[in-house]
């Protein structure tokens, strides 16, 4: 999936250097500030890590939602992780285009969301999404309570079988 992400970021086919691989692994250990069970790489906000012609590492991150308060926290956590690993001269770039989509959440990220009790997103490109599966009991008999939830990336659902409320990662 990370390969697919890199391809979406436009550098498919580029030969990955050891340093680039190290940084991907490093950032895969930086938790999302609001949903710490997944990393910022799982969330799909790390768009590229590449050694540019200027010899420096360029790391691209993109916001999930324009107003998401976690964006600043993700930026500083990424900077801190890079600095601590000795990549002080790495350039952290914020990119807007192409816009983030929940389709970029990795399969590992989806599994972790479900295990944590958050129903992972369905394909955003598919308007006829099926029912949302309850992350607790697995029932497909669920209903939406609200399009919105406790963070910009989640909606509020309830399971008709086990009667538990749960969060569903918005498909956008």
């Amino acid at each position, binding site marked *: 999936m990370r390969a697919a992400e890199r391809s979406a970021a436009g550098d498919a086919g580029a030969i990955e250097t050891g340093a680039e691989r190290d940084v991907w692994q490093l950032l895969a250990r930086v938790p999302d500030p609001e949903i710490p069970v997944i990393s910022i790489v799982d969330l799909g906000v790390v768009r590229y890590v590449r050694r540019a012609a200027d010899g420096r590492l360029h790391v691209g991150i993109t916001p999930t939602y*324009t*107003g998401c308060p976690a964006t600043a926290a993700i930026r500083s956590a990424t900077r801190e992780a890079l600095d601590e690993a000795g990549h002080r001269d790495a350039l952290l770039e914020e990119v*807007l285009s192409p816009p*983030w989509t929940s389709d970029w959440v990795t399969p590992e990220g989806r599994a972790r969301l479900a295990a944590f009790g958050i129903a992972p997103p369905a394909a955003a490109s598919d308007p006829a999404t099926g029912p949302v599966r309850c992350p607790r009991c697995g029932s497909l008999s669920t209903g939406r309570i609200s*399009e919105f939830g406790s963070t910009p990336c989640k909606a509020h659902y309830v399971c008709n079988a086990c009667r538990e409320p749960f969060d569903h990662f918005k498909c956008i």
Partner: protein
Amino acid sequence: MSPASVAPARRERALNEALFRYVLRLADTSLVLGQRLGEWIGHAPALEEDLGLANLALDLIGQARLLLTYAGEIEGKGRDEDALAFLRDAPEFLNLTLAEQPNGDFAHTIVRQWLIDAWQIEVYEGLSGSADTRLAAIAAKAIKETRYHYRFSSGWLVRLGDGTAESQARTQQAVDSLWRFTGELFTPDEIDERMAAVGIAPDLPAAAGRFGNRVDEDLRRAALVRPAAQPHPWHGKRGVHTEHLGHLLGEMQHLQRTYPGVRW
């Protein structure tokens, strides 16, 4: 500067000034509506709607930040998003008059939201293909949020309109009272026309048709009646506002007005 290059330089400056004002209009509409929605926090009819309105506000303020930052760069006088949001007075705000209208009851808030969501869908869709790549990137990002907002606002419009006699009457009243501000949404002025001519902004009259179809279909599903078109003496996007904006800014800019230059 040689006489031959004066005219193009002046044209360039005039285009830049028009772009600055065009981007401010988009930014201010999002910012003012976001601030209005924030007034609901802790007061909405149910916790879910409280969260919903706060989430809409958050997205709108996020869009406003991107647009204000860009406007400041276009202007080139060193004003950042904060300077533009907190250090301008009402006549310098260029938001749509509809955005500054008070929340009223929940039906008023939903109708205002639904109209602006439907307007933003047309504008952002058009801007996604803008000749201005920065605006295109911001619009491509914002349109995804706006479509989601529209799902919320049009869903509530139908539920309220096609609901009880009470909710139906209140929602029709909201439509009747806010309709007079819709003329401004798609009536182009010289800035809109200039931006459309150079491929930066969408053609408003063409978008007006799509907006009308969408709104009519939603009103039909909501069992509500579209009021007759009215002439609009409202010119928020030219800085001429209803009295409500001043009060909104008084609250939003309270800290900077009380302690000028204070920093977080």
